[in-house]
């Protein structure tokens, strides 16, 4: 996988980027946003513009006096070496973007796949909050079980490609699906498809058996 993609056709929505800029997205969605932005300079620039909006909101939101010793306390904190813990995430070797590697615990070969059925495999990534996020491995030419949505579902392609009723999604593309979309993604022939998929509601499979399976596998 190339580290940045110039042929991405499906981007994040303004609402998702603003939610990420404001810091209010559930962690699972933030992971998809951070991973897509790692691959997409267009969305990186849009996010920077939205961060600038945040800066202007902050400049213009009034003032609350700080206590007289606030500066001294801050300087003492600096002298103690506090606040140095968060080093920036540099570009990392491997196929997966750095934010995703943090959650997987390594690169592609560190993914611990579990069978879901129909040849599809997944790894659920641990996040706080109501939304959930998982890696999905769909064999080439295989369909993901037909499902609708109750909330928002984000699907970012990391390897291969899939198609559904709306379009084709290749590496770096992200599909933002809301509850109106009842879709049936199919992995393209050729390479197996690996996606990062986040949802803020349980998926609702349309066939009885997958719905039973859903309870066990936690999709």
């Amino acid at each position, binding site marked *: 996988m190339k580290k940045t993609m110039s042929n991405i056709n499906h981007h994040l929505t303004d609402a998702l980027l603003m939610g990420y800029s404001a810091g209010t997205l559930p962690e699972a969605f933030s992971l998809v946003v951070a991973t897509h932005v790692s691959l997409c300079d267009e969305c990186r620039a849009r996010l920077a513009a939205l*961060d600038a909006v*945040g800066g202007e*909101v902050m*400049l213009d*939101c009034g003032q*609350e006096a700080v206590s007289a010793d606030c500066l001294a306390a801050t300087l003492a904190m600096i002298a103690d070496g506090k606040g140095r813990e968060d080093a920036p995430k540099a570009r990392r070797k491997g196929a997966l973007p750095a*934010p995703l590697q943090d959650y997987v615990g390594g690169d592609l070969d560190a993914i611990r796949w579990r069978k879901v059925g129909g040849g599809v495999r997944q790894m659920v990534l641990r996040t706080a909050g109501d939304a959930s996020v998982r890696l999905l491995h769909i064999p080439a030419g295989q369909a993901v079980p037909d499902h609708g949505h109750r909330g928002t579902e984000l699907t970012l392609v990391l390897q291969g490609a899939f198609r559904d009723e709306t379009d084709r999604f290749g590496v770096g593309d992200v599909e933002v699906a809301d509850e109106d979309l009842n879709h049936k993604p199919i992995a393209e022939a050729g390479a197996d498809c690996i996606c990062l998929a986040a949802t803020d509601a349980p998926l609702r499979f349309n066939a009885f058996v997958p719905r039973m399976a859903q309870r066990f596998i936690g999709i």
Partner: protein
Amino acid sequence: MTTTETSTRMAWVAQLEAVRDQRDQRAFGEIFQYFAPRVKSFLMKSGAPADVAEECVQEVMATLWNKAQLFDPAKASVSTWIFTIARNKRIDLIRKQRRPEPEDLPWGPESDPEQEDALALQQETEQLGRALQALPEKQRKLIERAYFGELSHSEIAAETGLPLGTIKSRIRLALERLRHNMK
């Protein structure tokens, strides 16, 4: 409401560069004096009690000192940069969640910094500030509420009415140059 002129923004850039390059405590004090009460207000409007907000302000300003070497005025204005630190501290200290961040680009201040790029970015930011203030009251309030953390992503309007295209294009150009230099 007052607009912040580009000259003021360039003065902040100079102060932060003095912190970055000379570890200048006087310049740090000036940034602190201006921004600390605004960061505190922002955090309180985001729902933090006064004492938590004050503690968070100290963390934000200590981070500014410690991460000053990452500041690049061709990439972000000082207010934007401080906002991102404050936002991250709010998630970390107040919401107590992890925040996945995009891969960092090897920006850093370039060996031969382009003063005109920094100036252009500050001008774009000033214009963005003016556009925000010129929005109809109702629309501006919605954007403020989004940044104070009162709206979920599904409640954020698809159309903000803000002209983000110009500042986005400026940053996009800087990214392209960086990618070119990395090859």
